[in-house]
Protein backbone atom coordinates (compact mmCIF):
# COMPACT_ATOMS: atom_id res chain seq x y z
CA UNK A 1 0.00 0.00 0.00
CA UNK A 2 2.99 2.29 -0.41
CA UNK A 3 1.92 4.94 -2.88
CA UNK A 4 5.00 7.11 -2.52
CA UNK A 5 8.37 6.21 -1.12
CA UNK A 6 11.46 8.38 -0.91
CA UNK A 7 14.70 6.58 -0.05
CA UNK A 8 17.76 8.52 1.14
CA UNK A 9 16.73 11.37 -1.09
CA UNK A 10 19.06 14.36 -1.36
CA UNK A 11 19.18 17.34 -3.67
CA UNK A 12 21.96 19.91 -3.87
CA UNK A 13 22.29 23.02 -5.95
CA UNK A 14 26.04 23.47 -6.10
CA UNK A 15 27.17 23.63 -2.48
CA UNK A 16 23.68 24.35 -1.27
CA UNK A 17 21.97 21.23 0.10
CA UNK A 18 18.26 21.82 -0.44
CA UNK A 19 17.22 18.35 0.78
CA UNK A 20 19.16 15.95 2.97
CA UNK A 21 18.49 12.23 3.38
CA UNK A 22 14.73 12.25 3.07
CA UNK A 23 13.12 8.92 3.91
CA UNK A 24 9.39 9.02 3.56
CA UNK A 25 6.46 6.69 2.91
CA UNK A 26 2.98 7.91 2.05
CA UNK A 27 0.31 5.20 1.90
CA UNK A 28 -2.94 5.32 -0.07
CA UNK A 29 -5.92 7.26 1.18
CA UNK A 30 -4.16 9.94 3.25
CA UNK A 31 -4.23 13.73 3.23
CA UNK A 32 -0.78 14.90 4.21
CA UNK A 33 0.28 18.43 5.10
CA UNK A 34 3.82 19.29 4.06
CA UNK A 35 4.58 22.13 6.40
CA UNK A 36 7.60 24.36 6.51
CA UNK A 37 8.74 27.93 6.27
CA UNK A 38 9.68 29.47 2.96
CA UNK A 39 12.92 27.95 1.73
CA UNK A 40 12.61 24.84 3.91
CA UNK A 41 12.66 22.52 0.91
CA UNK A 42 8.95 21.93 0.28
CA UNK A 43 8.94 22.90 -3.36
CA UNK A 44 12.19 21.06 -4.07
CA UNK A 45 10.71 17.86 -2.65
CA UNK A 46 7.52 18.36 -4.66
CA UNK A 47 9.42 18.96 -7.88
CA UNK A 48 11.49 15.83 -7.30
CA UNK A 49 8.34 13.75 -6.80
CA UNK A 50 7.00 15.18 -10.06
CA UNK A 51 10.21 14.25 -11.86
CA UNK A 52 10.90 17.89 -12.69
CA UNK A 53 14.25 17.76 -10.89
CA UNK A 54 16.79 14.97 -10.69
CA UNK A 55 17.94 13.84 -7.25
CA UNK A 56 21.58 14.25 -6.34
CA UNK A 57 21.26 11.03 -4.33
CA UNK A 58 18.58 8.47 -3.51
CA UNK A 59 15.38 7.55 -5.28
CA UNK A 60 11.65 8.14 -5.43
CA UNK A 61 9.16 5.34 -6.03
CA UNK A 62 5.51 5.63 -7.00
CA UNK A 63 3.65 2.35 -6.63
CA UNK A 64 7.05 0.74 -6.09
CA UNK A 65 8.44 1.97 -9.42
CA UNK A 66 10.84 4.84 -10.04
CA UNK A 67 9.24 8.13 -11.06
CA UNK A 68 8.98 8.78 -14.78
CA UNK A 69 6.44 8.71 -17.59
CA UNK A 70 4.19 6.23 -15.77
CA UNK A 71 4.12 8.16 -12.50
CA UNK A 72 3.15 11.37 -14.29
CA UNK A 73 -0.05 9.68 -15.37
CA UNK A 74 -1.14 9.08 -11.81
CA UNK A 75 0.06 12.32 -10.19
CA UNK A 76 -2.00 15.47 -10.50
CA UNK A 77 0.14 18.46 -9.67
CA UNK A 78 -0.74 22.05 -8.90
CA UNK A 79 2.46 24.07 -9.10
CA UNK A 80 3.15 27.08 -6.95
CA UNK A 81 3.32 29.36 -9.97
CA UNK A 82 0.81 29.40 -12.76
CA UNK A 83 1.82 27.81 -16.05
CA UNK A 84 -1.41 28.55 -17.85
CA UNK A 85 -1.67 30.44 -21.07
CA UNK A 86 -3.79 33.40 -20.02
CA UNK A 87 -5.11 34.09 -23.51
CA UNK A 88 -7.14 30.87 -23.28
CA UNK A 89 -10.76 30.78 -22.23
CA UNK A 90 -11.90 28.52 -19.40
CA UNK A 91 -13.37 26.16 -21.98
CA UNK A 92 -10.08 25.95 -23.86
CA UNK A 93 -8.23 25.19 -20.65
CA UNK A 94 -10.61 22.29 -20.05
CA UNK A 95 -10.05 20.98 -23.58
CA UNK A 96 -6.33 21.15 -23.03
CA UNK A 97 -6.57 19.12 -19.84
CA UNK A 98 -8.81 16.61 -21.59
CA UNK A 99 -6.24 16.18 -24.31
CA UNK A 100 -3.29 15.88 -21.94
CA UNK A 101 -4.72 13.62 -19.28
CA UNK A 102 -6.63 10.41 -19.83
CA UNK A 103 -8.01 10.57 -16.31
CA UNK A 104 -9.48 14.07 -16.66
CA UNK A 105 -13.20 14.10 -15.89
CA UNK A 106 -14.55 16.83 -18.18
CA UNK A 107 -18.16 16.67 -17.01
CA UNK A 108 -17.25 16.74 -13.34
CA UNK A 109 -15.00 19.70 -13.93
CA UNK A 110 -17.73 21.56 -15.79
CA UNK A 111 -20.15 20.90 -12.97
CA UNK A 112 -17.74 22.15 -10.31
CA UNK A 113 -17.05 25.31 -12.31
CA UNK A 114 -20.75 25.98 -12.62
CA UNK A 115 -21.24 25.51 -8.89
CA UNK A 116 -18.61 28.17 -8.27
CA UNK A 117 -20.05 30.52 -10.89
CA UNK A 118 -17.06 30.40 -13.19
CA UNK A 119 -18.04 31.24 -16.77
CA UNK A 120 -16.83 28.76 -19.42
CA UNK A 121 -16.44 31.45 -22.08
CA UNK A 122 -14.39 33.82 -19.95
CA UNK A 123 -10.77 34.52 -20.85
CA UNK A 124 -8.35 33.59 -18.08
CA UNK A 125 -6.62 36.97 -18.41
CA UNK A 126 -9.92 38.65 -17.48
CA UNK A 127 -10.17 36.74 -14.20
CA UNK A 128 -8.95 37.94 -10.81
CA UNK A 129 -5.88 36.22 -9.37
CA UNK A 130 -8.01 34.37 -6.83
CA UNK A 131 -10.35 33.13 -9.55
CA UNK A 132 -7.44 31.94 -11.67
CA UNK A 133 -6.09 29.95 -8.74
CA UNK A 134 -9.49 28.46 -8.12
CA UNK A 135 -9.77 27.43 -11.77
CA UNK A 136 -6.39 25.73 -11.67
CA UNK A 137 -7.25 23.88 -8.51
CA UNK A 138 -10.53 22.69 -10.03
CA UNK A 139 -8.70 21.46 -13.12
CA UNK A 140 -6.15 19.59 -11.04
CA UNK A 141 -8.78 18.07 -8.73
CA UNK A 142 -10.91 16.98 -11.70
CA UNK A 143 -8.40 14.33 -12.67
CA UNK A 144 -8.94 10.90 -11.23
CA UNK A 145 -5.38 10.65 -10.03
CA UNK A 146 -3.81 8.44 -7.38
CA UNK A 147 -1.74 11.22 -5.90
CA UNK A 148 -2.53 14.92 -5.85
CA UNK A 149 0.19 17.39 -5.01
CA UNK A 150 -0.83 20.96 -4.28
CA UNK A 151 1.98 23.43 -3.78
CA UNK A 152 0.75 26.41 -1.75
CA UNK A 153 -2.82 26.40 -3.12
CA UNK A 154 -4.09 28.92 -0.57
CA UNK A 155 -1.60 31.74 -0.85
CA UNK A 156 -3.49 33.93 -3.33
CA UNK A 157 -6.98 33.03 -2.15
CA UNK A 158 -8.75 35.27 0.31
CA UNK A 159 -9.59 33.68 3.68
CA UNK A 160 -13.32 33.55 2.97
CA UNK A 161 -12.73 31.45 -0.14
CA UNK A 162 -10.38 29.02 1.60
CA UNK A 163 -13.32 27.02 2.95
CA UNK A 164 -14.47 26.54 -0.65
CA UNK A 165 -11.12 25.09 -1.46
CA UNK A 166 -11.27 22.65 1.44
CA UNK A 167 -14.71 21.59 0.23
CA UNK A 168 -13.39 21.09 -3.24
CA UNK A 169 -10.54 18.93 -2.00
CA UNK A 170 -12.74 16.81 0.25
CA UNK A 171 -15.46 16.37 -2.38
CA UNK A 172 -13.16 15.39 -5.22
CA UNK A 173 -10.59 13.20 -3.53
CA UNK A 174 -11.17 9.54 -4.37
CA UNK A 175 -11.20 7.06 -1.53
CA UNK A 176 -7.83 5.44 -2.26
CA UNK A 177 -6.16 8.60 -3.49
CA UNK A 178 -3.69 10.55 -1.39
CA UNK A 179 -3.03 14.24 -1.37
CA UNK A 180 0.03 16.22 -0.37
CA UNK A 181 -0.63 19.87 0.37
CA UNK A 182 2.23 22.20 1.07
CA UNK A 183 1.50 25.41 2.90
CA UNK A 184 2.65 27.80 5.55
CA UNK A 185 -0.99 28.76 6.26
CA UNK A 186 -1.51 25.86 8.60
CA UNK A 187 -4.50 26.90 10.66
CA UNK A 188 -6.73 27.14 7.59
CA UNK A 189 -6.24 23.55 6.54
CA UNK A 190 -5.11 21.55 9.54
CA UNK A 191 -8.58 20.21 10.16
CA UNK A 192 -8.59 18.10 7.00
CA UNK A 193 -5.14 16.57 7.46
CA UNK A 194 -4.51 12.93 8.36
CA UNK A 195 -0.80 13.40 8.77
CA UNK A 196 1.65 16.25 9.02
CA UNK A 197 5.24 16.48 7.88
CA UNK A 198 7.39 19.26 9.31
CA UNK A 199 10.28 20.11 7.07
CA UNK A 200 13.08 22.48 7.99
CA UNK A 201 16.41 23.24 6.38
CA UNK A 202 16.01 20.36 3.98
CA UNK A 203 15.25 17.72 6.60
CA UNK A 204 12.07 16.05 7.74
CA UNK A 205 11.98 16.67 11.46
CA UNK A 206 8.56 15.27 12.23
CA UNK A 207 6.02 12.98 10.53
CA UNK A 208 2.96 12.13 12.60
CA UNK A 209 -0.81 11.67 12.46
CA UNK A 210 -2.30 15.11 13.13
CA UNK A 211 -4.67 14.06 15.91
CA UNK A 212 -1.93 12.17 17.76
CA UNK A 213 0.23 15.25 17.71
CA UNK A 214 -2.61 17.44 19.04
CA UNK A 215 -3.27 14.91 21.76
CA UNK A 216 0.35 14.69 22.82
CA UNK A 217 1.02 18.42 22.82
CA UNK A 218 -2.44 19.72 23.76
CA UNK A 219 -2.11 22.29 21.03
CA UNK A 220 -3.01 22.92 17.44
CA UNK A 221 -0.67 21.91 14.63
CA UNK A 222 -0.27 25.61 13.91
CA UNK A 223 0.84 26.32 17.50
CA UNK A 224 3.18 23.35 17.61
CA UNK A 225 4.75 24.46 14.34
CA UNK A 226 5.20 28.03 15.55
CA UNK A 227 6.70 26.87 18.82
CA UNK A 228 9.13 24.56 17.07
CA UNK A 229 10.29 27.16 14.58
CA UNK A 230 9.77 30.24 16.73
CA UNK A 231 7.76 32.13 14.16
Amino acid at each position, binding site marked *: MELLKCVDLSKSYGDDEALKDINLVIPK*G*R*IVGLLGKNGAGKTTLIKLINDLLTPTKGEILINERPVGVESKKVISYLPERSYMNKSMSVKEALSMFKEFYEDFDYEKCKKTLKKLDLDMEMKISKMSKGMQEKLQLILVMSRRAELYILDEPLAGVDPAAR*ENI*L*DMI*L*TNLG*EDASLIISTHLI*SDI*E*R*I*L*DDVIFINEGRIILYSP*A*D*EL*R*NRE*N*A*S*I*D*DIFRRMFKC
Partner: protein
Amino acid sequence: MDFVFDNDRPIYIQLVEQMEKFIVSGELASGVRLPSVRDFAVRCRVNPNTMQRALAELEELGLIYTERTNGKFVTSDEDLIKKFREKYAENKAVNFLTEMEELGYTKEETLEYLKNLNQED
Protein backbone atom coordinates in the same frame (compact mmCIF):
# COMPACT_ATOMS: atom_id res chain seq x y z
CA MET B 1 -26.48 20.74 12.97
CA ASP B 2 -23.42 22.93 13.20
CA PHE B 3 -20.09 21.54 14.24
CA VAL B 4 -17.54 23.90 15.72
CA PHE B 5 -13.97 22.77 16.14
CA ASP B 6 -10.99 24.23 17.81
CA ASN B 7 -7.66 23.07 16.48
CA ASP B 8 -6.11 22.47 19.90
CA ARG B 9 -7.65 19.07 20.50
CA PRO B 10 -7.95 15.94 18.38
CA ILE B 11 -10.69 16.52 15.83
CA TYR B 12 -12.15 13.02 16.18
CA ILE B 13 -12.68 13.52 19.92
CA GLN B 14 -14.51 16.78 19.26
CA LEU B 15 -16.62 15.07 16.63
CA VAL B 16 -17.58 12.34 19.09
CA GLU B 17 -18.45 14.88 21.79
CA GLN B 18 -20.57 17.01 19.49
CA MET B 19 -22.37 14.06 17.93
CA GLU B 20 -23.08 12.76 21.43
CA LYS B 21 -24.59 16.10 22.29
CA PHE B 22 -26.70 16.22 19.11
CA ILE B 23 -28.01 12.75 19.88
CA VAL B 24 -28.88 13.33 23.54
CA SER B 25 -30.50 16.67 22.72
CA GLY B 26 -32.57 15.08 19.99
CA GLU B 27 -31.18 17.32 17.27
CA LEU B 28 -30.08 14.06 15.70
CA ALA B 29 -33.28 12.09 16.24
CA SER B 30 -33.13 8.49 17.39
CA GLY B 31 -33.34 5.98 14.57
CA VAL B 32 -32.38 8.51 11.93
CA ARG B 33 -30.06 7.49 9.11
CA LEU B 34 -26.70 9.24 8.92
CA PRO B 35 -25.13 10.49 5.68
CA SER B 36 -22.32 8.37 4.22
CA VAL B 37 -18.95 8.82 5.88
CA ARG B 38 -17.68 10.85 2.94
CA ASP B 39 -20.72 13.11 2.65
CA PHE B 40 -20.72 13.64 6.39
CA ALA B 41 -17.02 14.49 6.34
CA VAL B 42 -17.50 16.99 3.54
CA ARG B 43 -20.41 18.57 5.35
CA CYS B 44 -18.36 18.99 8.53
CA ARG B 45 -15.23 19.89 6.54
CA VAL B 46 -13.16 17.21 8.19
CA ASN B 47 -11.04 14.40 6.86
CA PRO B 48 -13.02 11.25 5.93
CA ASN B 49 -10.64 9.06 7.96
CA THR B 50 -11.24 11.28 10.99
CA MET B 51 -15.01 10.98 10.51
CA GLN B 52 -14.65 7.22 10.16
CA ARG B 53 -12.75 7.06 13.42
CA ALA B 54 -15.34 9.20 15.25
CA LEU B 55 -18.22 7.10 13.96
CA ALA B 56 -16.42 3.92 15.00
CA GLU B 57 -16.10 5.33 18.50
CA LEU B 58 -19.78 6.30 18.63
CA GLU B 59 -20.64 2.83 17.45
CA GLU B 60 -18.59 1.36 20.26
CA LEU B 61 -20.54 3.55 22.69
CA GLY B 62 -23.73 2.14 21.20
CA LEU B 63 -25.05 5.52 20.09
CA ILE B 64 -25.01 4.58 16.43
CA TYR B 65 -25.15 1.25 14.62
CA THR B 66 -24.46 -0.06 11.15
CA GLU B 67 -26.95 -1.90 8.99
CA ARG B 68 -24.85 -3.83 6.60
CA THR B 69 -26.26 -2.54 3.34
CA ASN B 70 -28.09 0.57 4.46
CA GLY B 71 -25.47 2.61 6.25
CA LYS B 72 -25.28 4.00 9.75
CA PHE B 73 -28.17 4.96 12.01
CA VAL B 74 -28.63 6.71 15.33
CA THR B 75 -29.66 4.20 17.97
CA SER B 76 -33.36 3.76 18.71
CA ASP B 77 -32.54 2.70 22.25
CA GLU B 78 -34.25 5.51 24.17
CA ASP B 79 -33.00 4.18 27.51
CA LEU B 80 -29.42 4.41 26.33
CA ILE B 81 -29.93 7.96 25.05
CA LYS B 82 -31.50 8.83 28.39
CA LYS B 83 -28.52 7.37 30.19
CA PHE B 84 -26.16 9.51 28.14
CA ARG B 85 -28.34 12.56 28.75
CA GLU B 86 -28.17 11.97 32.48
CA LYS B 87 -24.43 11.56 32.34
CA TYR B 88 -24.24 14.82 30.45
CA ALA B 89 -26.48 16.62 32.95
CA GLU B 90 -24.49 15.23 35.85
CA ASN B 91 -21.23 16.51 34.41
CA LYS B 92 -22.69 19.95 33.83
CA ALA B 93 -24.19 20.09 37.32
CA VAL B 94 -21.02 18.91 39.05
CA ASN B 95 -18.97 21.47 37.15
CA PHE B 96 -21.41 24.21 38.08
CA LEU B 97 -21.41 23.24 41.75
CA THR B 98 -17.61 23.20 41.77
CA GLU B 99 -17.47 26.65 40.27
CA MET B 100 -19.99 28.01 42.76
CA GLU B 101 -18.02 26.43 45.57
CA GLU B 102 -14.94 28.19 44.31
CA LEU B 103 -16.89 31.44 44.56
CA GLY B 104 -17.58 30.62 48.21
CA TYR B 105 -21.15 29.30 47.99
CA THR B 106 -22.12 26.25 50.02
CA LYS B 107 -24.33 23.70 48.33
CA GLU B 108 -27.36 24.99 50.27
CA GLU B 109 -26.62 28.59 49.28
CA THR B 110 -26.30 27.57 45.65
CA LEU B 111 -29.66 25.80 45.78
CA GLU B 112 -31.24 28.83 47.41
CA TYR B 113 -29.66 31.03 44.77
CA LEU B 114 -31.04 28.91 41.94
CA LYS B 115 -34.53 28.92 43.49
CA ASN B 116 -34.52 32.72 43.74
CA LEU B 117 -33.20 33.05 40.22
CA ASN B 118 -36.04 30.89 39.00
CA GLN B 119 -38.67 33.07 40.74
CA GLU B 120 -37.28 36.24 39.21
CA ASP B 121 -37.80 34.90 35.71
